[in-house]
């Protein structure tokens, strides 16, 4: 218990608070930049931590992560431009809300769910890390494959809900095709590289996303000509939004849990976590049709999941020493550099440092929440800025962001191409998120399918050999059956009864 108090005291030390604020501000700024998310922010500031004591380093990095995950949602709501990978799912309902003049409320919900999601993540890390990391260990290639199938099956089901099943399916397959570009990790074969060295690493997800959403949106705005909220009066009520996260507490909680689970499994990241939680909410809701048109829960769900990954991603990192994503790899690097070893020993030998980290995470969540809320009225004015100013700004920021990741011109070309593609897809009402899901899940699905078969020496039985894999398969089949067979039958019998 004293360790706990000591840890909090440590986190409250003046220089730690200073770095905490710095981290939150940096995070908000990086978040607002299109396409750049927590990974970019954390990687950027890693060098700074080398000369800082370990507790300060961890607090700085986690403050950046949490604030960026929240900041990514801001432009997603206001401009339909994802501020980062997690911002994608937030554009679905956040932007329609802005168009209806309810940007303030959406931003409030964003802040609230960011705070609450982060807290769930911290709790999971601090209190239930061991059982969660035990779960992470049970996920082998067969289970990963089933998870990706689960994600992909949701794509077509959502499409069905909005009458776009076939289009969604086509785009998801196209996304899968794009994910195959590059060198295959299992066989080493080069696919679709056309002898261009740049393509060896495949179509990079973030530049493609920036193009598909940010640049295409810029083009659309240019076409439209006016400001985003148009003539709607601005209903500036962040408090209403914050309260909605408590009113819909089950959505917040459920999504945060999805976020924690997804992020503690290595290889599944913040993007998949936020997309999955959005899709899960849509599926279990009674008002399926309202998603995509400005349902506040469509903002709460992805943001809660995204913020929960702050703690979630560190679970296997701290308890096993195995990073579940690039961010946690950086956290582990910060630990090792200061002579601390991740693993069960971390909780005993590092004791104080661990508690100061939790306290720091908690404090930084509150800080970015307050910073965000106070700036919200300012932010929502953005929806009134005329397109002639917004468009060039978005274009420049998008390309800057895309280039900043790997300093490669090829990434810019990808952004440009996908920008045009995205523009046309949105114009003709094709569900672009399906393409994104195919792109992001493709590599995970294929490599794990291959690995599973290598381990089982070609036997397909491996996909139903463990309770987890079998369970997932049954859930997928059940959901498909429901969506395509049972629900339509019920509809038909309802109509018959009415007649």
């Amino acid at each position, binding site marked *: 218990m004293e360790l706990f108090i000591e840890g909090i005291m440590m986190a409250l030390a003046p220089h730690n608070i200073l770095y905490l604020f710095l981290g939150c501000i940096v995070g908000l700024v990086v978040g607002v930049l299109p396409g750049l998310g927590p990974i970019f922010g954390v*990687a950027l500031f*890693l*060098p700074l931590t*080398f*000369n800082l004591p370990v507790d300060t380093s961890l607090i700085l990095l986690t403050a950046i992560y949490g604030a960026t995950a929240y900041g990514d949602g801001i432009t997603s709501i206001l401009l339909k431009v994802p501020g980062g990978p997690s911002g994608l799912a937030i554009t679905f309902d956040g932007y329609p809300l802005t168009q209806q003049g309810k940007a303030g409320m959406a931003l409030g919900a964003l802040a609230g769910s960011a705070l609450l999601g982060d807290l769930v993540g911290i709790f999971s890390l601090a209190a239930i890390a061991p059982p969660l990391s035990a779960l*992470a*260990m049970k*996920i*082998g*290639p067969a289970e990963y494959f089933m998870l990706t199938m689960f994600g992909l099956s949701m794509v077509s089901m959502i499409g069905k809900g909005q009458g776009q099943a076939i289009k969604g399916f086509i785009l998801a397959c196209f996304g899968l095709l794009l994910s195959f570009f590059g*060198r295959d*990790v*299992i*066989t*080493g*074969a080069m696919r679709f590289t056309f002898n261009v*060295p*740049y393509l*060896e*690493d495949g179509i990079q997800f973030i530049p493609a996303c920036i193009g598909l959403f940010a*640049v295409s949106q*810029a083009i659309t705005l*240019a*076409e439209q*000509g006016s400001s985003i909220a148009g003539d709607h009066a601005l209903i500036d009520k962040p408090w209403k939004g914050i309260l909605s996260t408590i009113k819909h507490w089950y959505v917040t909680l459920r999504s945060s849990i999805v976020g924690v689970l997804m992020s503690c499994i*290595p*290889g599944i990241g913040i993007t998949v976590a936020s997309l999955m939680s959005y899709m899960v909410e849509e599926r279990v809701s009674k008002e399926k049709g309202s998603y995509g048109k400005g349902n506040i829960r469509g903002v709460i769900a992805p943001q809660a999941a995204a913020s929960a990954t702050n703690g979630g991603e560190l679970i*296997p990192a701290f308890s*096993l*020493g*195995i990073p579940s994503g*690039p961010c946690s*790899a*950086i956290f582990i*690097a910060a630990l*090792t*550099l*200061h*002579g601390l*070893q991740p*693993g*069960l*020993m971390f909780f005993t030998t590092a004791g104080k440092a661990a508690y100061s980290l939790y306290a720091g995470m908690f404090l930084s969540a509150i800080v970015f929440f307050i910073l965000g809320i106070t700036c919200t009225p300012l932010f929502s004015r953005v929806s009134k800025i005329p397109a*002639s100013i917004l468009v*060039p700004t978005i*274009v420049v920021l998008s*390309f800057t962001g895309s*280039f900043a990741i*790997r*300093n*490669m*011109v090829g990434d*810019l070309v990808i952004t*440009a191409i996908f*920008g045009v593609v995205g523009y046309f897809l949105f114009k003709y009402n094709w569900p672009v998120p399906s393409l994104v899901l195919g792109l992001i899940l493709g590599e995970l699905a294929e*490599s794990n399918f291959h*690995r599973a078969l*290598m*381990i089982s*020496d070609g036997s397909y039985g491996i996909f139903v050999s463990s309770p987890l894999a079998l369970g997932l398969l049954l859930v997928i089949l059940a959901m498909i059956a429901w969506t395509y067979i049972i629900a339509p039958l019920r509809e038909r019998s309802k109509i018959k009864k009415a007649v």
Partner: protein
Amino acid sequence: MYKLSKRARVLSVLLVIGLLLVMVGCGSSSTGNDEGNQQQVGSDYPKSPVTIIVPMKAGGSTDMVARTIQPYLNKHLGASVVVENVEGGGGKMGVSQVYRAKPDGYELLLGVFPAWLLTQRIDKTADYDVTEMVPLYNISGKDYNALAVPYDSPIQTLEDFLATTKEKTIKVSGSGLGTNSFLAFVLLKDVVGANVDYIPYNSGSEAALAVVGKHVDACVGSVISFKPLSDDKKIRVIATFGPDRAEAFPDAPTYVESGFPKAAFDITLGIMAPPGLPDEIKSKLESAIEQAVNDPEFIEKAKQASIGLAPMNSEKYKESIMQADQIIQDNLDALIAGSQGN
């Protein structure tokens, strides 16, 4: 405000995008470092920042070595030293960039062996030859690869392992193809002659997790990455691939002492320069790095971060690179066969 037609507006945005691309494309074709272009041979070197290119992502254990020594290089070289990450192609982008940089001492490479040689020899699209580059000084080594099994596996020793392979094929996970652990696997399969199958994963950590979760029977990986898991009793290291026993696992025998002298290699991390570096600059750098590596503060930090030190001057470094190359050449066919169409 003058409002253009819809079509004009869309076209103007596309035009801007196109212009931006052209500008950036032109701008980046000139290789950076304009200050270092003056070919004043060595006398006033270094007079501007020196960049060390690390051809991998930030935050990995390799990257860490560069970042740990960076402040000490700053101190002993008398110039600002910057670490820059250049990802891509499994290391090819970064190595290629330095290979073709001006040999003026302002752009250096973090040399990782045998990794960079592996990519060069196995991958036909590598457009560089690391053996032509100038090895300056080696920093770290003794991070040998090791073979690990789940802690409560029936296989407890190397003998158990070899006996089991006579009955069935053992699945061994490792990080990717053309990597250090892949070389370890090939040595296991061809030199030691074990009946094993390789299951490539995207990274060393995922490969290690696979053996912790018992999805595979064994794993090849580096000693540094196995230590926390071994301490937590999740895995057991049964043999190591170094010329000597690993400090972290004093009880694990090496393949060398178990009767397989050719199944040994070291993983070294050092600094290299582009081919054609003038001797004056080379000796300045060599001595600066030597001082940094022997700096007591650095030694302390390296110990804290579990970085094994293996200081080698330019000549010895070159020898060790040649030795690594020899091992690769001896097993080249197996390496190439294994990395294509598994």
